[in-house]
């Protein structure tokens, strides 16, 4: 219950529940467009990647790109969704200069992928399920450039005809964080499968967000669709603004108009793009230039067999095989490269005679990934090879360094100073395990602090104070295991 209550937003007249559904547009990672064979690529000059078909010259006809179909099937399988062996392409008719044909070829009635579902992790490691209504293939439009000339709009058709997968969710999300987590999960799955590179900065993955509000448990409210939001942060900001806007209107006695809205990331607000009355009548009908798309069941089965290990399965395996927490495993699987890095570090550790995979995971998630993401990087940009993480953990397992010193060693590793054992040598960071020396220090400390000694005898958890003092006295080089042992013996706990 508290979980649900957390997500509600408080209005003047009471709590409101946000209901969110997403349409994610993911560009198929294909070198060629969906129906024209023209090249797809980022950074080409305007209109350099346009074929006669893309420019809709008279008499040109679309021919489906088999590779794109395969990617849609792979994505569908990754979403645990029904693959429709028979699907169809429809025309969505509207006029715009960046839509040369005057229609977009899409799948309206019979999509290639039907119902599926995705398990999504919240930041706290708990999970929820989002239903996927469908995934369909469609063409992207070109790009209108309004800022090149005061009196004209320029059109770049490079993107026109590029293959997109539109993934439509059920209205199963209840707060901005859940929506962002869902997009993250879809992105992860698509990247695992290789169907989309998930590059949101280039617009290769973007979302339309449907937002409505209602009293908890009431019927669904009227929704507004926020178009083309292309970062996790913007998705959350757009939802938060839009939900508040809707609550205010309703609380002021107004009604929500079903409409399409745009998110202004500068002003952090949404504004109306077109109302329901202005909505296009797209006059969908089956594209007569294309035959129904019939898939061979064996072909789909082959694709299924060729899929890599998917995020959910990998998460379960990492938990089972290495004893990782749900949280650590969840962080590790966001990119398959992270899990690969982790697993190769563990393998190196095992080869060196070590075993503490959880400790490896700690360094990867808490140190390495945190530092990388602070710089906006992913694991592939790591300055530290996986084998060195293994080396560091081995030093800890062998008691050569304490956890505190290990952090220092890690700083040096991060700075590119090389393998951990060398760093320990160079900087003289080896841990003090000489029990004789430690016993002396500890005896002196107990003698000097009788009140603390009594307190620890009462409440053994307070031993930390003495550990800290020992560390201080040894410059952090004392082996915490030995320190604890000697302290316990001397304090009789």
């Amino acid at each position, binding site marked *: 219950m508290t979980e649900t209550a957390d997500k509600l937003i408080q209005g003047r007249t009471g709590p409101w529940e946000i209901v969110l559904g997403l349409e994610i547009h993911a560009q198929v990672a294909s070198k060629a467009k969906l129906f024209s064979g023209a090249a797809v690529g980022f950074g080409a000059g305007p209109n350099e990647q346009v074929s006669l078909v893309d420019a809709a010259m*008279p008499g040109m006809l*679309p*021919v489906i790109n088999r590779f794109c179909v395969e990617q849609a099937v792979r994505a569908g399988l990754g979403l645990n969704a029904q693959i429709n062996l028979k699907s169809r392409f429809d025309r969505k008719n509207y006029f715009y*200069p960046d839509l040369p044909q*005057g229609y977009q070829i899409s799948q309206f009635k019979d999509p290639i992928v039907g119902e599926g579902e995705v398990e999504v992790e919240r930041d706290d490691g708990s999970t929820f399920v989002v239903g996927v209504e469908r995934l369909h293939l469609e063409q992207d439009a070109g790009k209108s450039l309004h800022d090149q000339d005061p009196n004209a709009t320029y059109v770049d058709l490079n993107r026109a005809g590029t293959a997109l997968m539109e993934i439509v969710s059920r209205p199963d999300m209840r707060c901005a964080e859940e929506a962002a987590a869902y997009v993250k999960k879809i992105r992860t799955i698509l990247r695992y499968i290789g169907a989309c590179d998930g590059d949101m900065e280039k617009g290769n993955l973007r979302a339309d967000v449907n937002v409505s509000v209602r009293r908890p448990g009431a019927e669904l409210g009227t929704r507004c669709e926020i178009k083309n939001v292309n970062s996790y942060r913007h998705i959350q900001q757009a939802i938060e603004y839009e939900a508040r806007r809707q609550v205010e209107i309703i609380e002021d006695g107004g009604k929500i108009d079903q409409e399409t809205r745009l998110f202004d990331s500068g002003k952090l607000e949404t504004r109306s793009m077109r109302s329901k009355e202005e909505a296009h009548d797209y*006059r*969908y009908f089956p594209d*007569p230039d294309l035959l129904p798309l019939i898939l061979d069941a064996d072909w789909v089965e082959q694709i299924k067999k060729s899929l890599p290990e998917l995020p959910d399965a990998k998460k379960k395996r990492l938990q089972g095989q290495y004893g990782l927490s749900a949280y650590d495993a969840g962080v590790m699987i966001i990119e398959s490269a992270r899990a690969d890095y982790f697993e190769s570090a563990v393998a190196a550790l095992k080869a060196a005679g070590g075993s503490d995979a959880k400790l490896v995971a700690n360094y990867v998630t808490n140190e390495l990934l945190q530092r990388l993401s602070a710089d906006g990087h992913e694991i592939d940009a790591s300055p530290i090879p996986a084998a060195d993480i293994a080396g560091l953990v081995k030093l800890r397992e062998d008691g050569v360094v304490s956890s505190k010193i290990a952090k220092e060693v890690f700083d040096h590793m991060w700075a590119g100073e090389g393998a951990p054992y060398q760093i320990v040598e160079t900087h003289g960071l080896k841990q003090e395990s000489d029990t004789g020396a430690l016993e002396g220090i500890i005896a002196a400390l107990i003698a000097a602090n009788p009140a603390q000694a009594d307190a620890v005898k009462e409440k053994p958890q307070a031993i930390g104070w003495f550990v800290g003092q020992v560390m201080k006295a040894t410059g952090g080089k004392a082996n915490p295991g030995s320190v604890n042992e000697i302290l316990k013996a001397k304090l009789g706990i």
Partner: protein
Amino acid sequence: MSGLTDLTLKAALDGLASKAFSSEEITRAHIAAIEAARALNAYVLETPEKAIEMARASDARRASGDAGALDGAPLGIKDLFCTEGVRSTACSNIIGNFVPTYESSVTTRLWRAGAVMLGKLNMDEFAMGSSNESSAFGPVTNPWRAKGSNRPLTPGGSSGGSAAAVAADLCLGATATDTGGSIRQPAGFTGTVGIKPTYGRCSRWGIVAFASSLDQAGPIAKTVEDAAILLTSMAGHDVKDSTSLSVDVPDFASFVGKDVKGLRIGIPGEYRLDGLQPEIAALWDQGVAWLKDAGCEIVDISLPHTKYALPAYYIIAPAEASSNLARYDGMRFGRREEGTNLTETYENTRASGFGAEVKRRILIGTYVLSAGYYDAYYLKALKVRRRIAEDFTAAFHKVDAILTPTAPSAAFPIGEKSDDPVAMYLNDVFTVTTNLAGLPGLSLPAGQSSDGLPLGLQLIGRPLDEGTLFSLAGAMEKARGVMARPDRWW
């Protein structure tokens, strides 16, 4: 050498093969004939220099012994086909002076077979019409005139230029296209042979689209054999057209002259419309008699959904057209009429660029696809379409081919039906069914009306069974004997 234009394609190819004359000679003869026949308005673009260049290249090939199936034969090309470097307009102002950088798949095949292009042929704008009157270049005049009259007649449409050019010996044969009868009805009106092959036989790539699920290219020719020769070169699988059929193309000419004894010919009762002109009915009976004499078995059949075909066609074809013609928006090529904003530019461009009939069909098509009407019109029409196809499937269990009239009348005067679209649409009543069902249909001249105008009969075949149609048409052509020719009044 004016006699060279009188030749059939077959005779011309034989003459070229035996070196009785050169391609340049027969091409020049046609160029001269075209110049002399401008009153017909059959050609919207003459390409004599290109023709002579192609003819010389053909003569060189013949000299070196590697001539193709159509080598040296001068042909006319309907302006719906995109031809590389040669203006292609679909006879619409909105396409304007568009010069494609590409060649349609069908014409590519013809040039590969060695044919020579004389120019681009007039047609109804975007192939929408049954009289060639909707062309931006003005109507074509039928070479035929009613006995004792100088009143100009239409050659039918939309391939009116193709049919008139063949009938007037302005080419040895022509390409044409047929969405609801646009090859067969003009062939019927001009005493020529036209075949719309099975949907998917000829690639649609590079042909300006009217209604994609119905459009098919085919030839208009002087004889059944000529039509068979041309279709053999035009047809064939094309990976650039997803609806193109991956099947072998037989030598269609080999079917002409084949014995038709024992073939069962269906006569659909539903085509005997109320008010069918007596001379059309008599012509039909004559065709039945010829086939009976040739040893065919005549079988009465029923195609019960026939009466719904025309309404269904005039929903489906405009629906597809309304979408296919959206690309003519003044943005990338062709005509553009600036407005003060984008919507106005679209409106001005399309209002001034499209002719009245095309606008009518775009409006109809937009209407039947719009929310709230889709189910009642478009979806219903698709269901009718399926029923019509099922009617034919059932009939072809009992018969090998079907015989009907091509059109409900002979050629009519220019202007007679131009104010009455429904009367105009009724021209397609016998032909649209094969487009809806994707079947091959062939029209051949079978006789003349009381005032001397040609009349055609239509043979409809099973999918991909054009061969049987050529055999039957060949037998009927033989029984008919020599057809009269139009007087050269031009």
